[in-house]
């Protein structure tokens, strides 16, 4: 029995240890976010400290550092950016307390000793301070999410900067000289920063992020130092969505001066090299393009000029080239998914409320009629005429543009039926009087000021096709019921029945156009009770 007892003791010990270890493990696992207000936080100033990634796998989760929280505290204590940032060439380096990421231990030590030391000292001064233990900085669970918005310069902001700097473009714009390895300013060659400064630092070209933070903030800071008005120097000033909305917008921005054309033919560029073997000429007519007008439609040049400020065709050649990533001129102008292409951008315009009512139900990739192509690829004057008149391309393009009619064409008011009686559900409701004429006139009125829309609806009856689809343009299109009858007809599996055709067309259009009444689910909003 003595032996048995010792075994029992051992066993009891084993139980205790096992159960304890299970629960200790469990405590570790069950750790939940402690403060609920942290959980709901979104901030624009989160900097993820994960620099050690460059030296191999992280041993601990990265630290989320709230930059503005720190600058705010420093400001109260009248301390500046130098508290954390070193300077080089009279510029502050965005890195914390160092100029370069040298090696793993050094970078790690800089963070650990400096952060913790400061937190300790602040705590010693009986002030609110940051964490000093590992797990409080290196957290597994992310409780704060980033609301950081990308920042960029639009025409308005650019104008305000150039005005402040008295149109001295060289303050910001520069080129790089490979030989002298120095920056220089080239007049007339200014482009957006991003043409050179990419997402990541490549050799001599620092990343856009670094460039912006070095130059913008440094300049803002120095200007502020001179007690002058300057842009923000904290994170949220630029990257918070609400702060972005506060940025003053100049409505009437004068046109940028960068030698851009007013009108131009979008076409193949004649090779300057006379020995060029490519003889291909575009088969379609060149498109006359109003560069001037489109400048007004967009906030930045980058919207179209995504890589440089040269003509589209300089990269996007007819056959495609390496510079244009093999995107041919035709594709560059017509690709639907692209925001830079003509059609892509026009398609985005169709999502506007006044357009979407009809366009949302139109298949985007549908085959368009040939006539549609001619809207843009219009025939120029016959060559001999233009030659005889000694008209150059520019004038030709300007003439073509001027000849465009941008007015939505509709039938005479009296030819548009005032109301259409819909009486498919007479067994349940009274007939519905569809205010047909009112609808047509509203649609036309809605796009009255939209040049793009007007131009593309200038053929008589085009606007009618928003509802009267799948039938030829006509003053008296077939009735809905002539195609839509019983639902689920095997021959036309995609064709809805009459009830669904009416309902989905009305409701879809109302939804897209933001017409809230009658609510789709309110039957009596349209159908009067019998």
């Amino acid at each position, binding site marked *: *029995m003595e*032996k*048995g007892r*010792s*075994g*029992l003791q*051992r*066993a009891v010990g*084993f*139980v205790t240890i*096992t*159960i304890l270890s*299970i629960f200790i*493990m*469990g405590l570790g*696992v*069950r750790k939940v976010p402690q403060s609920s207000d942290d959980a709901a936080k979104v901030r624009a100033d989160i900097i993820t400290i994960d620099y050690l990634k460059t030296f191999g796998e992280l041993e601990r989760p990265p630290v989320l550092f709230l930059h503005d929280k720190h600058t705010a505290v420093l400001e109260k204590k009248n301390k500046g950016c130098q508290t954390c940032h070193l300077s080089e060439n009279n510029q502050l380096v965005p890195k914390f307390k160092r100029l370069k990421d040298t090696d793993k231990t050094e970078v790690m030590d800089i963070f650990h000793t400096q952060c913790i030391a400061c937190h300790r000292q602040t705590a010693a001064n009986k002030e609110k301070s940051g964490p000093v233990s590992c797990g409080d900085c290196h957290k597994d669970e992310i409780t704060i999410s980033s609301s950081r918005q990308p920042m960029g310069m639009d025409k308005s902001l650019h104008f305000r900067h150039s005005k402040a700097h008295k149109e001295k473009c060289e303050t910001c714009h520069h080129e790089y000289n490979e030989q002298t390895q120095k920056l220089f300013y080239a007049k007339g060659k200014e482009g957006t920063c991003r043409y050179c400064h990419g997402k990541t630092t490549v050799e001599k070209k620092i990343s856009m992020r670094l460039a912006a933070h070095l130059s913008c903030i440094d300049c803002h800071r120095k200007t502020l130092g001179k007690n002058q008005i300057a842009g923000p120097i904290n994170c949220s000033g630029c990257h918070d969505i609400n702060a972005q909305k506060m940025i003053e917008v100049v409505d009437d921005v004068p046109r940028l001066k960068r030698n851009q054309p007013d009108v131009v033919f979008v076409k193949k560029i004649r090779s300057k090299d006379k020995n060029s073997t490519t003889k291909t000429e575009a088969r379609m007519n060149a498109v006359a393009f109003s560069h001037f007008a489109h400048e007004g439609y967009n906030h930045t040049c980058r919207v179209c000029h995504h890589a440089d400020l040269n003509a589209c065709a300089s990269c996007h050649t007819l056959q495609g080239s390496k510079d244009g990533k093999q995107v041919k001129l035709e594709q560059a102008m017509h690709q639907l998914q692209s925001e830079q292409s003509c059609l892509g951008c026009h398609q985005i315009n169709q999502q506007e409320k006044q357009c979407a009512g009809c366009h949302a139900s139109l298949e985007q990739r549908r085959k368009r009629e040939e006539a549609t192509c001619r809207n843009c690829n219009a025939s120029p004057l016959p060559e001999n005429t233009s030659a005889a008149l000694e008209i150059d391309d520019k004038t030709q393009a300007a003439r073509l543009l001027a000849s465009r009619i941008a007015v939505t064409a509709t039938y005479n008011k009296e030819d548009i039926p005032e109301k259409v009686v819909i009486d498919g559900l007479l067994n349940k409701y009274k007939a519905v009087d569809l205010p047909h004429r009112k609808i047509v006139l509203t649609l036309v009125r809605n796009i009255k000021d939209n040049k793009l829309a007007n131009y593309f609806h200038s053929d008589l009856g085009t606007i009618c096709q928003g509802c009267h689809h799948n039938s030829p343009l006509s003053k008296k299109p077939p009735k809905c019921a002539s195609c839509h009858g019983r639902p689920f007809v095997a021959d036309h599996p995609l064709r809805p029945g009459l009830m669904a055709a009416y309902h989905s067309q009305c409701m879809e259009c109302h939804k897209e156009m933001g017409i809230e009444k009658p609510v789709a689910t309110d039957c009596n909003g349209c159908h009067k009770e019998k």
Partner: protein
Amino acid sequence: MSEDTATIGKSYFTPFNIIAGLIVIMGLVLTVIRFTGGLAATTNLSDYNPWGLWIGFDLLVGVALAAGGYVTSAAVYLFGMKKYHSAVRPAILTAFLGYALVVLALHYDVGRPWRLPYPFIVQQGTTSLLFEVGACVALYLMVLFIEFTPVPLEWLGFKHARNLVVKLTLLLTVFGVVLSTLHQSSLGALFLIAPSKLHPLWYSPYLPVYFFVSSIIAGLSMVIFESTLSFRFFKHKMDESHSAEKDTIALGFGKAASFVLAGYFIIKVIGISAGNQWHFLTTNYGLWYLVELLGFVALPCFFYAVGVRDKNVTLIKWTAFWTVIGVVINRFNVSMIAFNWHLPSSERYFPHWMEIGISVFIVTVGLIAFKFIVTRMPILYEHPEYKDAH
């Protein structure tokens, strides 16, 4: 409960009788509510939780804990371990009562209990594992009944009939083991069809194997546990050989249980590995899984081993009790706790007190029947006329 309650001739108002009587009265009242108000009146079952305590406890646990019948009879009659002979009859009795009560409990749980024979006589859903379970439980209940009949026959003195049944022992035992293998495993296999509802730590293609192996563990532990209780309460009913073999049985069955537990532990770990479910172990469910695996599999395995090596029967008895709880927990996990884990807590199931009441009532009925039989029939002792007959 106390020893003298069993002594005939004393007052009927013993503590056991009073408590049991009250429970039975409550059970009868609840039965009336169940069959007049429907399941909604007595249970917390819902459309999300169609199976509750009556399946989780009465069926799954009931069948698992009645596994002692086939385990013991197989050991004694098939594997020739005659030294455990005195354990056979109590085990068979427990199993028989267990299965009978399982079937009784099912009458409460199913919507139209009088249709319970339908799967066999009206329309056979042969693709259903429940059909297999039903068929096996029904047949095994019959087998157990026949295996048990020598007891009342001896009691009643029907010598011929008794000897005839005893001759069938081998056949019945083989048949019993086959049926038990099938339905014990199939109870686990019932949940194979719901991989989207059972937590991945518990769901495994090995579920039938787990259920079968753990039923052996449950059977072995129940025999030890139950003989402990019998010795405590029906000591005076035991004959010499039963009293004497009691410790031998504990040591032998403890050794077997320990070894089977070890194997069970291994296949459980293999199941986690095969499904690559390791990452779940760090969640709350994982923690609970570890409690089950370490606390109720690894731990009793170790305790049994220590008990057997040290010949510490007390430890073995307590471990048997612990293991039985472990099996109960396992069945609860599969059928209720880890089942529907994906649902929000508002839709999760917790038994209604009346469900618990019915379960308690059924267990009580079992205890009463056990007591009735043990105090009258040759279970814990050998009938003088049939000594040396085996």
